[in-house]
C-alpha cells in the first residue's frame, strides 16, 4: 500500500513539474519537485526507505530529462540516504528545521546533478548560473516542503510512524 501511495505522490510531483512549473518560475528557476519527494522520503522514511523512493523519483525524472538515464536516480538515492542518516539525530518538531534541511539538500542535489553530468560529458552545466539555480530551487523547495510534508507523511506513514516513535528509555 505504501508503494501505491508513493507512486501516486511521484505522479502528482511529475505532473506539477511538467505543467504548472513550466510557467511558474521564480527568477527563471522552477522548484525541483522530484528532488523534493526524494528528500522528504529520506527525512521521514529514514535511510531504509528514503533511497528507494529517491531512486524511483529520480528515475521518473530522468525519463523526461535530456541527460543520461540514471543520473537523477543516483543523485536522489544518495541524497535521500544521507538525509535519512544525518537527520536521525535531529529533532522532528520544527517545521523551520525541515524547511532548512530540504533547502540545503536541494541545493546539494542540484550541484551534484550538474557535477555528475559534467563528469559524464554533458558540457555547460557548471557555471555561476548553476549556483543561482541551486540557490533559488533550494529556497523554493524549502518553502514548498511545508505544504508537501503532510502528503509525504501520509504516503509513507507506517515507515514514518515507526521512525518518529519515541525511543524506549533504557533504565538499566
Amino acid at each position, binding site marked *: 500500500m505504501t508503494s501505491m501511495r508513493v507512486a501516486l505522490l511521484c505522479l502528482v510531483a511529475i505532473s*506539477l513539474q511538467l505543467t504548472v512549473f513550466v*510557467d511558474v518560475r521564480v527568477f527563471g528557476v522552477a522548484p525541483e519537485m522530484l528532488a523534493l519527494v526524494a528528500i522528504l522520503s529520506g527525512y521521514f522514511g529514514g535511510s531504509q526507505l528514503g*533511497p528507494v523512493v529517491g531512486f524511483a523519483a529520480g528515475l521518473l525524472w530522468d*525519463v*523526461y530529462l*535530456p541527460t543520461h538515464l*540514471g543520473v537523477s*536516480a543516483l543523485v536522489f*538515492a*544518495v541524497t535521500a540516504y544521507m538525509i535519512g542518516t544525518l537527520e536521525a539525530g535531529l529533532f522532528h518538531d520544527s517545521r523551520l528545521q525541515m524547511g532548512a534541511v530540504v533547502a540545503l539538500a536541494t541545493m546539494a542535489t542540484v550541484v551534484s546533478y550538474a557535477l555528475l553530468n559534467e563528469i559524464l560529458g554533458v558540457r555547460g552545466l557548471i557555471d555561476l548560473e548553476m549556483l543561482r539555480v541551486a540557490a533559488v530551487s533550494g529556497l523554493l523547495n524549502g518553502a514548498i516542503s511545508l505544504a508537501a510534508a503532510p502528503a509525504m507523511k501520509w504516503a509513507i506513514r507506517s515507515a514514518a510512524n515507526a521512525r518518529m516513535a519515541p525511543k524506549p528509555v533504557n533504565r538499566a
Partner: protein
Amino acid sequence: MPPAQHTGRSRYRLALLVLTSITLLSLDFRSFGPLDSAQSGVRDLLHPVTSLVDTALSPIGGAWNAAFRYGDLKTENRELRRRIDDLTGHAIEVEADSAAFARLQRAVDIRFGEGIPTVAATVLRGEVGNFDTNVVTIGKGSNSGIREGMAAVTGAGLVGRVSQVDRTTSTVELITEPSLIVGVRVVSTDEVGLGHGVAGEPNQFVIDQGPAWPDNGDPALLPRIGSAIVTATDSRYSAEIPVGTVIDVATPDGLAMVITVELSNDVTDLGFVSVMLDIAPDEVPLLPVVPSTLVPIEIDPAQVDSAAGGGSTP
C-alpha cells in the same frame, strides 16, 4: 532491530541502488534500444495524465505570467493599445484567434525543401527542468511519421532537430543549443562551415569551423553583413533551409573566421512548428577532408629535405 544491523542493511540497499544506476547509465551510453523504448513507453503512458493536469491547472500558469511578467506585458499592452484604436470592441477575441492562425500559417508555409512532406505540430511546452533550456516538446510523434533526426522548421527557417520521439509527442532540440552542430552555407561567398548556438544568447548562432580568413584580409572576400545563411548540402538536414543572416565577421587569430549569425526564427516564442518528414543521416556533419600536405605525395620527402639543404647531399 539493532542499530548496527539497521545501518548495514541501509548501506547494502544503497549500494544496490547505486549499482543499478550505474548499470542504467552504461546501458544508456550504449543507446540500448529496449531502454529507449521503455522510456518512451513511460512518457506515452503518462501523457494523458499530464495533458489533463495541464488543462486543469493552466490558469495558474496564466495568472503567474500575468502577475510576474509585468515588463513583457507592458510592451505587449502598448502594442495592443495601438491596435485597439483601429479595432472594434469584439475584435480583440478575433485578433487572438487570427494571431494563432497566423502563427500556424507561418509554421506550415514552408517555401523550402520542395517535395518533402511536412507535418505541423503545436508546441506543448518549453523546458521542464532547470538545465535543459534549449528543448521544446511538440504534440506530434511517431504516429504522425516523425522520426529522430528530422528537421523542425517554421516558414522563417530552421528551428531545431527532433531528438526524441514518442507515440504522440516529440522533443525538439533547438538550434540555440550550443552542442547541436549544424552544417551551413554562407550564400554570399558559397563557403560551407559548421555552426552552433551560443549559450545565453537565444537569437544568435556562430559559425566557427570551416570558412578561413582571407590571406590578405581583403574585405571583399568576407561574407557580407546581412548575407543569408542556409543549411548546407552535407548537413544533417535538407539543403537550403534558412538559418539566419550574418551580423558580424571576425577572426580570433588571423586564420580562422568566426561568423555571428542572427537567427531567422525566434525560438523563445514558438507556437507551432513543422517537421520535415525526410530521413536525415543521423551523424554529425563533417567538413570535406582537404589534404593538408603542401607537398605532392608522390614526391619523396628525402628529396625535399635535400633540396631545402641546398643540394649539398650527393
